[in-house]
C-alpha cells in the first residue's frame, strides 16, 4: 500500500456536548480499493461518513485529499473534491424521470428551456458508466430499490466522483441484486475509484473488501485484511466480555405464570401464524433480519395495528384487536422503535411526556390531576435517573438515553406489567444502555414480563432468557439462552432467504 490515498481522515475526533462520539480515528480510502468500515450501531460510522461528506467538521485531526489537507465546510465542498455518498435513504426524486434525476441541478438547456434530447443523451451516457441499461424516461419511483441505487451511483460518477461512500447499500437488496452491485463495484475498482463500504453482513466483507477498519464506541480498534475470519471480526467489533455489557439476572421461571399468550397471530402480508407465550419475570427476545415482521408483530400485540386473525391474551383474557386503550388497561406498555417519531412529543416537557398514558386514568371529572402527575413524574424520573435540568424542560433537549428512559418511565407510572420493547437501545450511548438493561432486570424481578425486538444480536443474546427467530413473517425457530449463539440465530434468520427473495 505504497500508493497515495485519495482520502484520509487523520486522527479525527468529534464531540457532541459532553459525549465524545469519535476519538482519534484514522481511516484512508485508496484508489481502486474497497475500504470496509465495521462497527456496531453507535460505534461512530455514520459520524465518520458525515465528516467525509462535509456535513460535520472534525473537532480534532484533519482531512487529507490527494496528500493535501483540506476543510470540507459543506457537502458542496466534498462533492467538489470528488467525494460522493450513497446513503441508505436515496437522494432521488421519485416523481421525476431517471434522466431528470441523473441531471438534476445541471439540466442542459437551449434558449432557456430544458433540452430534452441532450438531457436523455447525457443521462444515458452517465448510466453507461456502470453498464446500466434502463429507459431514462421511467419515473425513479417505479424502479426497484436496487436500480435506484445504481442510478444514484451513476449520477455520482457522472459528476466526477472518485471516492464513493456506500452506506449499507446491501441492506435492502436481495442476494442477486447484491451480486449485481458487487460486479459494478469490481468494475469501478478497475477504473481506480476508491470506495468506502459499510455493511452489517459480515460475509460480504471478504467478497468485496480489501481492508477493514474496525470501530468500537468511537475508537479506532484496528485495521485488518478483509480476509479475516468473521469470528475474529465480531470479536474486534464487540470487544471482549459480552457478559459485562449485558448484566442480565434471570429469574427462576419454573413456577412463573404465563402472562402474555399469542396464538396463531396473522396479519396478511406482514406475518403469519405466530404463537408463543411469555412468563412473568421472563425476557423473550425476538431476533430476525430487518423486514422479517418483528416490529409489525409487536405493534399488533400493542394494539397499534389491526391483524387478520389469531388472538392476543393477557393473563387468559383475550384483547380486542387494534385497541391500544384495552392493551394498556390489560397492563401492556409499548416502547416503539422510533423514539422521536412515535415515542415522544419532543416539544412537550418531560413531565407531560411521562404522563400521557395516565392522563385520562388519573383525571377527576375530566380534569387533569396536575399535582399528582407532577409528583409521580418526579419520582419516576429520580428512580430512573433521568438527567435533566428541570422536569418542565422540553424532552427533545435530553440525550437519547434519557429520552428512552422517559418512554420506559411512562409505562412504569402506568404500572404496566408487560413491556413490548422495539429496539430499546437504538441511538442510546453505552452508559445509558447498561442502565436500561438494569431497568429490565428490575422489571422482571418484580414479576414483569418483557418482549424485546432487537437488531443488535449481542443485546438479544445477552439479555434474553429465550429467543424467538423470525424469518419472512414466520417463526423460524426458538432457542434457549444456553444454546443461542450469533451463528445459531443468524442461520435461522437468514436460511432460505435467498430463494424466497428470488421467487418474488
Amino acid at each position, binding site marked *: 500500500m505504497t500508493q497515495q490515498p485519495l482520502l484520509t481522515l487523520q486522527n479525527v475526533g468529534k464531540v457532541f456536548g459532553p459525549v465524545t462520539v469519535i476519538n482519534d480515528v484514522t481511516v484512508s480510502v485508496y484508489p481502486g480499493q474497497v475500504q470496509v468500515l465495521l462497527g456496531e450501531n453507535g460505534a461512530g460510522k455514520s459520524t465518520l461518513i458525515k465528516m467525509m461528506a462535509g456535513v460535520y467538521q472534525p473537532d480534532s485531526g484533519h482531512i487529507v485529499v490527494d496528500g493535501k489537507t483540506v476543510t470540507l465546510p459543506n457537502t458542496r465542498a466534498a462533492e467538489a473534491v470528488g467525494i460522493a455518498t450513497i446513503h441508505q435513504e436515496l437522494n432521488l426524486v421519485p416523481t421525476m424521470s431517471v434522466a431528470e434525476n441523473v441531471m438534476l441541478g445541471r439540466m442542459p438547456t437551449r434558449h432557456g428551456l430544458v433540452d430534452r434530447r441532450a438531457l436523455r443523451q447525457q443521462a444515458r451516457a452517465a448510466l453507461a458508466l456502470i453498464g446500466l441499461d434502463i429507459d431514462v424516461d421511467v419515473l425513479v419511483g417505479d424502479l426497484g430499490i436496487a436500480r435506484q441505487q445504481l442510478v444514484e451511483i451513476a449520477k455520482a460518477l457522472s459528476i466526477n466522483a472518485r471516492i464513493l461512500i456506500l452506506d449499507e447499500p446491501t441492506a435492502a437488496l436481495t442476494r442477486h441484486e447484491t451480486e449485481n452491485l458487487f460486479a459494478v463495484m469490481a468494475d469501478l475498482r478497475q477504473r481506480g475509484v476508491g470506495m468506502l463500504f459499510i455493511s452489517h453482513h459480515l460475509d460480504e466483507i471478504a467478497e468485496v473488501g480489501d481492508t477493514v477498519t474496525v470501530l468500537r464506541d468511537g475508537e479506532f480498534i484496528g485495521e485488518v485484511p478483509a480476509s479475516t475470519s468473521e469470528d475474529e471480526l465480531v470479536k474486534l467489533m464487540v470487544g471482549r466480555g459480552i457478559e459485562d455489557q449485558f448484566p442480565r439476572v434471570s429469574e427462576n421461571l419454573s413456577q412463573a405464570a404465563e402472562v402474555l399468550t399469542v396464538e396463531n397471530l396473522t396479519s396478511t402480508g406482514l406475518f403469519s401464524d405466530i404463537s408463543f407465550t411469555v412468563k412473568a419475570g421472563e425476557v423473550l427476545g425476538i431476533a430476525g433480519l430487518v423486514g422479517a415482521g418483528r416490529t409489525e408483530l409487536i405493534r399488533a400485540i400493542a394494539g397499534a395495528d389491526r391483524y387478520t386473525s389469531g388472538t392476543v391474551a393477557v393473563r387468559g383474557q383475550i384483547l380486542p384487536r387494534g385497541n391500544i386503550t384495552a392493551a394498556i388497561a390489560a397492563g401492556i406498555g409499548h416502547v416503539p422503535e422510533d423514539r422521536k417519531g412515535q415515542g415522544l412529543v419532543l416539544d412537550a416537557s418531560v413531565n407531560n411526556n411521562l404522563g400521557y398514558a395516565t392522563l385520562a386514568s388519573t383525571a377527576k371529572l*375530566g380534569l387533569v390531576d396536575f399535582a399528582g402527575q407532577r409528583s409521580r413524574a418526579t419520582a419516576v424520573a429520580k428512580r430512573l435517573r433521568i438527567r435533566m435540568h428541570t422536569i418542565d424542560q422540553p424532552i427533545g433537549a435530553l440525550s437519547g438515553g434519557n429520552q428512552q428512559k422517559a418512554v420506559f418511565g411512562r409505562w412504569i407510572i402506568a404500572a404496566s406489567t408487560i413491556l413490548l420493547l422495539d429496539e430499546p437501545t437504538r441511538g442510546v450511548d453505552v452508559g445509558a444502555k447498561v442502565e436500561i438493561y438494569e431497568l429490565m432486570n428490575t422489571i422482571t424481578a418484580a414479576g414483569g414480563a418483557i418482549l424485546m425486538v432487537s437488531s443488535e444480536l449481542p443485546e438479544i443474546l445477552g439479555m434474553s432468557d429465550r429467543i424467538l427467530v423470525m424469518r419472512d413473517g414466520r417463526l423460524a425457530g426458538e432457542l434457549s439462552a444456553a444454546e443461542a449463539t450469533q451463528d445459531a440465530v443468524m442461520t435461522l434468520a437468514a436460511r432460505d432467504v435467498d430463494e424466497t427473495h428470488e421467487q418474488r
Partner: protein
Amino acid sequence: MSTTTLPTPRRGVDYKKFLANNGALVGLVVLCLALFIATPDFLTGPNLLNIGIQVSTVAVLAFGMTFVIVAGGIDLSVGSVAALSAMSSGWMFASAGLPGWLALVGGLVVGALAGVINGLANAYGKLPSFIATLAMLSVARGLTLVISDGRPIKTAPEVSFLGGNLGPVPMPIVILVIAALAASFLLNRTVIGRSMYAVGGNAEAARLSGLPVKRILVTVFALAGLFAALAGLLLAGRLDSAQPQAAAGYELDAIAAVVIGGASLSGGLGRISGTLVGALVLVVIRNGLNLLNVTSFWQQVVIGLVIALAVGIDVLRRKTRNS
C-alpha cells in the same frame, strides 16, 4: 392573563423570560401607547368599548381556531360556519316559528355539527384538515345562501340580546370574557385540552400512549364549530339580523390572531391568552388606523406586514433559544 398553564416554581419575576414569552403582549402595549400619544380619540370610553365589541367576534372565532391549531390542524370554515349558524338560527325563529331561545341554541348546535363533520372527515376520512375545512367553507356558505335565498333574516330577540347591553357593558364583551375563561379552562385543565397539545405535538406518540386521537380531533373541530356559531350569533345580534355574507374571510383574521398570539402552525403550541392578545393587536391596529384616517386599503397592507413581522420575530426567537 391569569390563564397560564402549569404552576412553575419561580424566584421573583424573570423579566427576560416574560418578555420572550409574551412578545405579542409587549407589542400590544407599545401599540396602545403610540396611539394614545398620536390621537386623543384613542383612549376614550366609547372607543375602548367599540374595540371591545369589535374584538369579541374575532377573538371568539380565534378561540375555536386555537384548539384546532394546537391539535395540529387548521380550520378554514369558521367564517362560513358562523354565517350558517346565525342564518339557521334566524330561519328557525322566523320561518320555522321556534321559540327564540331554542333558535339560539339551535344555531349553536348547527355550528357544532358542521365542526363534527369537519372532524369526522379529518380523523376518519383521512382528509387533511386544510382540505376538509376548505370544502366546508364552500358548503356552509352555499347552504347559508340557500336558506336565506341571499337575503338577510331577522333574528330572535334572544339573539339580539347578545348584541345589546348588560347595564353599561355591551353583551359581546361579557360573552368574550366568558368564552375566554371557558376556552382557557378547557385547554389548560381538562384531559381533552391537554390531549390536544399531545396530538398536535406528535399524533403517533399520543396514539401509542393510548390517547384516543380520532375522538380528540372530532371534539376539537366540534369546539371550533361551536365557537364559530357563537361568533356568528354575536355578529347577527348586533345587526338584529343574519346576513348571508356575514363573517366572510374572518377565518383569516382568526388564524392571524392565533399565530400572532404565539401558536405554532405545526401544532402543539398555543394559549388562549395569546390568542386574545393576537385578536386585540389586529383590532387595535385597524381602530388606530381608522382614527388616524388611514384608508382601509392601506390598512390591509399594514395588517399583512404585522402578521409577517409577528411570526418572523417568533421564529427567530425560537431559533436562538434552540441553538
